């Protein structure tokens, strides 16, 4: 049993923020998605903004500074800046299909399209989205569905396999609030790989990003998503990934947070068909006063599904990492094989890591394992490296990189450039964290 103490400040923050949200609800964009927006708004009003310390999943969130945001504020920047990047090539994988979110116009003919265009062509899809909004049990997903700036659609037909990854860049320093969304609809035996980068490089203003990735994986389909949050902004990056997985389909997510101020990724994977598999990996490298919250809900609904979660965090400075993962094995989900591991490395006295593994098993013929460790660098290993002439800082960086390495290795990608890029950025984040 956990005692929950309600602190008025949290409740107040939540209600201030909520109030700031409800006002502009009246100004929701009047587009073809209106029915979805309305349903989401209604659902959000019922659920309310989560109050930390009252709600278990928000217990360790620090949302005090959220109250400074207000949804009806004018955008602080020009969204065209999203397209006018000064880098000669901001892209990692040359062969990838590249998108900056939110572009004012999407190139025609690509697999990624504006959701509004798709709805105009297939109005019946809207009913599904409205239903999804009504069923939504996460207030933040509702927020995204209500305000989604320019939701995208990735639809793959049967047997369609994208031969290059889709690379998406979300620059959130051009707007103070951003609600990027992508709705993925995969027919049987299709396959796709997404590389989503969240970047921002401004400390002038605070930012609030509430992203949503909603996926439906058809039978035997395969979806890989690599997410790298490498933001240097003072603000909140909240992501929700919600995946419905049909028989024999495979989902693979790597969620990587590099010194992201208040990063929270909630991953919801529902194994709805026999033989389906979900692999969810995470890596957080945190220094300064940054925070990362990786939350997983893995739902085994039917028999013979497999899932694996492995989350690691290297935490220095006064940073804070939380892993909260739940495996549900429903009554019918016999012969489930589910694994969960959370490993945390603390590199300073003030760093904190929380591992919260949960299992809820209602079937009797299952294999479930979970483990959690929180530790420090091994003195024995450090001495071994120094006995070979390697100085202290370098030794710490090497051992920390060694700790993180298998998570970089575990990234599933057809692109060497993407893996190399993630490794490079992780290395930079480590080096700057260790230097303090």
């Amino acid at each position, binding site marked *: 049993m956990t005692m929950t103490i309600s602190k008025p400040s949290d409740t107040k923050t939540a209600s201030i923020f909520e109030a700031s949200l409800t006002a502009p609800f009246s100004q929701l964009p009047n587009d073809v998605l209106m029915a979805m927006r309305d349903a989401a708004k209604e659902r959000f009003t019922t659920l309310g903004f989560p109050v930390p310390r009252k709600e278990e999943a928000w217990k360790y969130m620090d949302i005090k500074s959220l109250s400074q945001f207000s949804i009806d504020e004018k955008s602080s920047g020009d969204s065209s800046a999203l397209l006018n990047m000064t880098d000669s090539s901001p892209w990692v994988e040359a062969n990838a299909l590249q998108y900056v979110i939110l572009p004012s116009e999407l190139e025609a003919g690509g697999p990624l399209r504006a959701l509004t265009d798709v709805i105009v062509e297939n109005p019946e899809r809207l009913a599904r989205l409205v239903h999804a909004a009504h069923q939504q049990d996460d207030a933040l997903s509702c927020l995204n569905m209500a305000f989604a700036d320019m939701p995208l659609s990735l639809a793959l037909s049967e047997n369609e396999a994208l031969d290059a990854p889709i690379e998406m860049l979300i620059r959130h320093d051009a707007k103070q609030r951003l609600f990027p969304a992508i709705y993925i609809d995969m027919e049987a035996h299709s396959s796709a790989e997404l590389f989503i980068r969240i970047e921002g490089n401004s400390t002038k203003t605070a930012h609030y990003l509430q992203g949503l990735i909603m996926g439906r994986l058809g039978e035997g389909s395969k979806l890989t998503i690599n997410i790298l949050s490498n933001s240097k902004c003072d603000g909140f990056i909240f992501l929700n990934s919600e995946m419905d997985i049909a028989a024999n389909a495979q989902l693979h997510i790597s969620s990587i947070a590099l010194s992201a101020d208040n990063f929270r990724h909630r991953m919801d994977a529902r194994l709805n068909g026999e033989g389906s598999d979900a692999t969810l990996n995470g890596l957080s490298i945190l220094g300064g006063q940054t925070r990362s919250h990786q939350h997983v809900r893995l739902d085994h609904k039917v028999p013979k599904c497999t899932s694996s979660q492995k989350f690691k965090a290297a935490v220095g400075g006064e940073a804070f990492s939380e892993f909260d993962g739940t495996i549900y094995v429903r009554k019918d989900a016999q012969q489930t094989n589910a694994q969960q591991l959370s490993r945390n490395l603390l590199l300073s006295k003030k760093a904190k890591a929380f591992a919260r593994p949960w299992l809820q098993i209602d079937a009797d013929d299952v294999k479930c394992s979970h483990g959690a460790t929180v530790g420090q660098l091994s003195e024995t290993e450090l*001495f*071994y*490296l*120094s*006995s070979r*002439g*390697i100085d202290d800082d370098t030794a710490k960086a090497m051992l920390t*990189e060694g*700790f993180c390495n*298998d998570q970089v290795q575990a990234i599933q990608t057809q692109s060497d450039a993407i893996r190399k890029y993630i490794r490079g950025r992780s290395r930079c984040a480590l080096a700057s964290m260790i230097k303090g």
Partner: protein
Amino acid sequence: MTTPILQITNLHARVVDGGPEILKGLTLTLNAGEIHAIMGPNGSGKSTLSKVLSGHPNFEVTSGEVLFKGENLLDMEPDERARAGVFLAFQYPVEVPGVNNAEFLRMALNSKRRAHKEEELDEKAFAEFLKTKLPIVEMRDDYMERAVNEGFSGGEKKRNEILQMAVLDPALAILDETDSGLDIDALRIVANGVNTLMNKDKAMIIVTHYQRLLDYITPHHVHVLANGRLIKSGDKSLALELEERGYDWLLEEASV
């Protein structure tokens, strides 16, 4: 007269934080070109000596002096000692998960080269350099792509230690029970490696329990360490005598 490689005078050391004293006045000089074997019963301080010389944080020197090529070794941090040319081959080599063996060796070599104002080797140049060192310990290059010592057998770990020694080319090498846990083939490989690396400008301390290793590596001097001090020194024949008679007669003689 040339400066000795290592000059230990009346060395006293204990376990940190007021732990027991283990070295109780040890004196030893190693000149260039010399191999010294140190033998002795369990608990006599052999491994402690190795660790103190390499700067292990679990031990503190309470008195005495250690000069390495005339410089005060005890003033240096462990990494400085290594860069200066002191190498300890560990009795129990440490597994370092996630750290690539070749990269580890390159970082170690470059640390030394940097300290000596020599140009650092990039990955490619180092790979070429390493190719010339692998045959010394008969190691395949696929070991280089694995994590340091992770999943290595006892023999492979010891060979990896000697490979590190080959890469770093130290003036003083201390081999702490390098022969323990080795089968006959691995023992031969390790000993051959050590012999290849030894020359007239270097010195070596070989800590061992068994005369067997000394069949392969011929020491110039053999010392018996007991109760924190050297109680007897001799040539190679002393090791053979110890093999036959054990330590009791010596301990009685020295009344320790």
